[in-house]
């Protein structure tokens, strides 16, 4: 952890109208590290995650990924970055309902320009790795919630991103499924060397992380002083 962090958010400031969602929020992730963002509802966790991923632009402050300032990039550049370097898992409703699970996993590869056949081949491997090969030909609507989340995890990792952003990935799952998804997710991320920014309010889910940061009223509380 002595080396430079891979992704740094500094002094982020963001308001939606009169609500201040982020206020001097600062956070960093090192390569290969799993960071859990915790905190009460409405504290700004998702907003922070969106800013770090270059989905939202902060009003002030800077997000640096591998030395490049995300906030200064053109929108297309950030899109390309998200396509190639980042992966995403959300709580629900992220799979394209009309594509099969296999095609869903292949989608990011195809967006990145891979051929259809090659994309489907690696998608298949990822589905197998997350133990959901049996839903490959089904549409997301025909898979269970847990299977769907595994497909989503496979889709987030299929491009071998450097950072995976996960916002309550097990929020809609029961304990057993949630645990299994987290196990597979974190194991796969560690295998591929991806860093993970994980928003959760469940301590058991956060226990899969290397480090946690607590967001409260738009600020990140650093725990370093106690350690």
């Amino acid at each position: 952890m002595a080396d430079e962090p891979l992704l740094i958010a500094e002094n982020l400031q963001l308001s939606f109208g009169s609500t201040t969602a982020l206020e001097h929020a600062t956070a960093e992730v090192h390569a290969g590290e799993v960071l859990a963002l915790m905190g009460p509802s409405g504290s700004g966790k998702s907003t922070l995650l969106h800013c770090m991923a270059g989905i939202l632009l902060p009003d002030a402050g800077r997000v640096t990924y591998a030395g490049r300032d995300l906030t200064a990039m053109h929108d297309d550049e950030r899109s390309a970055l998200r396509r190639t370097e980042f992966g995403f898992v959300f709580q629900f409703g992220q799979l394209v309902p009309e594509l099969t699970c296999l095609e869903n996993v292949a989608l990011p590869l195809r967006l990145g320009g891979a051929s259809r056949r090659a994309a489907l081949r690696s998608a298949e491997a990822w589905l197998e790795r997350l133990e959901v090969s049996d839903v490959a030909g089904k549409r997301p609507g025909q898979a269970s919630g847990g299977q769907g989340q595994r497909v989503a995890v496979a889709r987030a990792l299929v491009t071998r991103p450097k950072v995976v952003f996960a916002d309550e990935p097990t929020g809609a799952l029961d304990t057993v499924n949630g645990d299994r998804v987290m196990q597979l997710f974190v194991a796969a991320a560690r295998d591929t060397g991806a860093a993970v920014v994980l928003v959760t309010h469940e301590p058991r889910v956060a226990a899969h992380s290397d480090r946690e940061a607590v967001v409260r009223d738009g600020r990140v509380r650093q725990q370093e002083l106690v350690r």
Partner: protein
Amino acid sequence: MTVGHALLGLLEGGPAHGYDLKRSYDERFGQDRPLAYGQVYSTLARLLKNGLVEVEAEPGAGPERKKYAITQAGVSDVAAWLAQPEKPEPYLQSTLYTKVVLALLTGHDADDLLDTQRAEHLRLMRDLTRRRDTGDLADQLICDHALFHLEADLRWLEVTAARVQQLAAQVRG
């Protein structure tokens, strides 16, 4: 030692007689196990000896008329105690609860306390998670048991902190 810290914390609100301290303690933390009067005096005596409290003499007072006040050393002792996370283990409630209430009484941030404790809990939970994910079935069952209890503690602490904060004004008043 919890009772000592509790009495110290109560004294931060202002000097008090031994009997008043027992009454405050019973009201807030005693529940169905009130503090024995003798224990109050022995505890105060120890605190006095350690220089954490001092006695404000009142003219013509007997021993039960002595008024105790917290010293500077006492104040920092309370602060240090509050900042120190408890070693995560089952059935911490009474200690954690005392801490939360005292934190509020003494004007400390209950969130700090929560965050500190969570960090400590998570540290243990990470170990348990790692052990569970790599261990055999027996390990898994034991680890899960511990994990659920630790999580319950943390959640309870979160809820308590939130509730107590809502009542903060009332408690202080």
